[in-house]
């Protein structure tokens, strides 16, 4: 066999795994009626692809090929299974009754939505919902999910196993909730999607600052939700994600270094995404049910529409944070509000607010709090305070680009001494 060809096919299989494995899995779960069985089938299908594609060529519709191969392998596995007489026999009967699985794009999209609503079912604990969605819908490894949760990988793995066995044993259906249940079920889904987006936008650790496919995945799920249920908060979340995503190209330099909002080249921002985000925020804000996602999106829209930091409408941003704090009191929002007040009223006022938050004991291990503190001290010329704050931040960050940014800041401070 031609080794170059084999290597090329392997690369393609890897690429298809990254782009399509979750879609294939979502459909296999529907066809096989079981998460574990579907995961085994997914593995088998990709293993078969690696074996067969170098010789037979890559099929024209790889996902459809993977779905039918996975399904076939699962049936085969069940046939050979020792428990064939009992439970597996039933599954087998059910599978064989459905000879024509739906491979249409529409059906595949629905399957992904089924998967996310199942993973976010309220009968699962909140922790389990998030873990399962990141693992099953987004295809993160257990280790990546564990890092996002700041939880040991073994705990996470067990959480996922338990959640899957609850889905199976308690009979949680693989379906999109009925319209009457949909609003209630939406909240947990939105929360999970936002966490997925953040995992892509601010990946929790490692050399890459962003993981575009994850954010794109979250945006895609957000779009699908808005289409299905044009609820204001679903629009608000989608707008929020788009408005953050629009700034992606401006956030990092060509060598992957972090660039602060005030220093970003705003011509790099994606105007199309901003326009779409702003339109969605406006739609969300005209409803009478304005929630936290819409408010955060409104704040992001003010930033996105400003030509630079100086001419940003900080008063409006502070006002929006005030409303947001009422809707959802949290120390992180207070911190952001303090940073906005620093821009409106000067660094001294902002610093006092941040110190007040830190004095409550909240956010003492939250690096953005120390980074914001360092920045304000630097602007005030309080070099040694800034140094201390940046050193503290450096001890808390896990990401390479942020580490480099902080090291640069510290060096600049050294040269000012």
């Amino acid at each position, binding site marked *: 066999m031609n080794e170059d060809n084999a290597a090329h096919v392997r690369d393609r299989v890897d690429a298809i795994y990254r782009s399509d494995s979750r879609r294939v899995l979502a459909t296999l779960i529907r066809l096989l009626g079981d998460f574990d069985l579907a995961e085994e089938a997914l593995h088998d299908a990709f293993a078969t692809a690696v074996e067969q594609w170098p010789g037979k060529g890559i099929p024209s519709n790889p996902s459809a090929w993977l779905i039918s191969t996975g399904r076939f392998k699962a049936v085969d596995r069940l046939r050979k299974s020792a428990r064939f007489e009992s439970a597996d026999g039933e599954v087998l009967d059910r599978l064989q009754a459905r000879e024509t699985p739906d491979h249409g794009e529409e059906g595949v999209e629905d399957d992904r939505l089924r998967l996310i609503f199942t993973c976010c079912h309220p*009968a699962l604990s909140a922790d389990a919902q998030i873990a399962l969605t990141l693992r099953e819908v987004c295809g993160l490894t257990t280790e990546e999910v564990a890092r996002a949760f700041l939880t040991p990988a073994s705990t996470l793995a067990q959480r996922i196993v338990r959640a899957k066995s609850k889905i199976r044993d*308690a009979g949680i259906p693989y*379906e999109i909730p009925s319209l009457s249940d949909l609003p209630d079920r939406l909240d947990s889904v939105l929360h999970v999607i936002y966490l997925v987006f953040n995992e892509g936008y601010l990946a929790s650790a490692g050399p890459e600052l962003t993981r575009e496919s994850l954010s794109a995945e979250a945006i895609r799920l957000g779009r699908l939700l808005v289409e299905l249920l044009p609820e204001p908060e679903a629009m608000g979340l989608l707008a929020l994600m788009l408005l953050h995503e629009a700034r992606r190209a401006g956030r990092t330099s060509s060598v992957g270094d972090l660039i602060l909002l005030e220093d970003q080249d705003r011509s790099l921002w994606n105007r199309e995404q901003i326009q779409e985000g702003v339109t969605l925020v406006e739609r969300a804000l005209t409803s009478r049910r304005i929630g936290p996602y819409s408010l955060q999106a409104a704040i992001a829209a003010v930033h996105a529409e400003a030509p630079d930091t100086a001419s940003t409408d900080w008063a409006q941003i502070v006002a929006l944070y005030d409303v947001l704090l009422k809707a959802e009191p949290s120390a992180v929002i207070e911190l952001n509000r303090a940073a906005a007040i620093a821009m409106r009223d000067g660094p001294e006022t902002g610093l006092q607010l941040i110190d007040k938050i830190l004095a409550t004991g909240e956010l003492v291990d939250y690096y953005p709090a120390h980074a914001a503190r360092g920045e304000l001290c630097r602007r005030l010329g309080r070099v040694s305070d800034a140094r201390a704050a940046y050193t503290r931040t450096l001890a808390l960050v896990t990401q390479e680009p942020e580490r480099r940014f902080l090291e640069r800041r510290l060096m600049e401070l050294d040269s000012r001494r």
Partner: protein
Amino acid sequence: MKYLCLIYDNESEWQKFPKEVQDKYMGEYMAFGDSIKKSGQYVGANQLQPSHTATVVRSRNGKVSTTDGPFVETKEQLGGYYLVEAKDLNDAIQVASRIPSARSGAIEVRPIVERNAA
């Protein structure tokens, strides 16, 4: 699938209700029971005597010990159950949410282990 809907409610509160409130409650239970019989979801149901009538039995090394009272003391006591047939958990939750005590107490929905007669 079959689900056992365990009804937990505060029985001392219940005993304090005037007769007409209790009757109204019982009427609601009758109506609920009729509705799930009509829909074909009813498998079985019973109301339990109050928890002070409970006896806890254990057998250890062939020695039987008998103690008074429910297994655990809680604010809400197991007062009865419905065994229902439901399509899936969502369906069972829908049924459980209509049990009158869902409004005052809580319903625990537990799937029944299905054993194949192989």
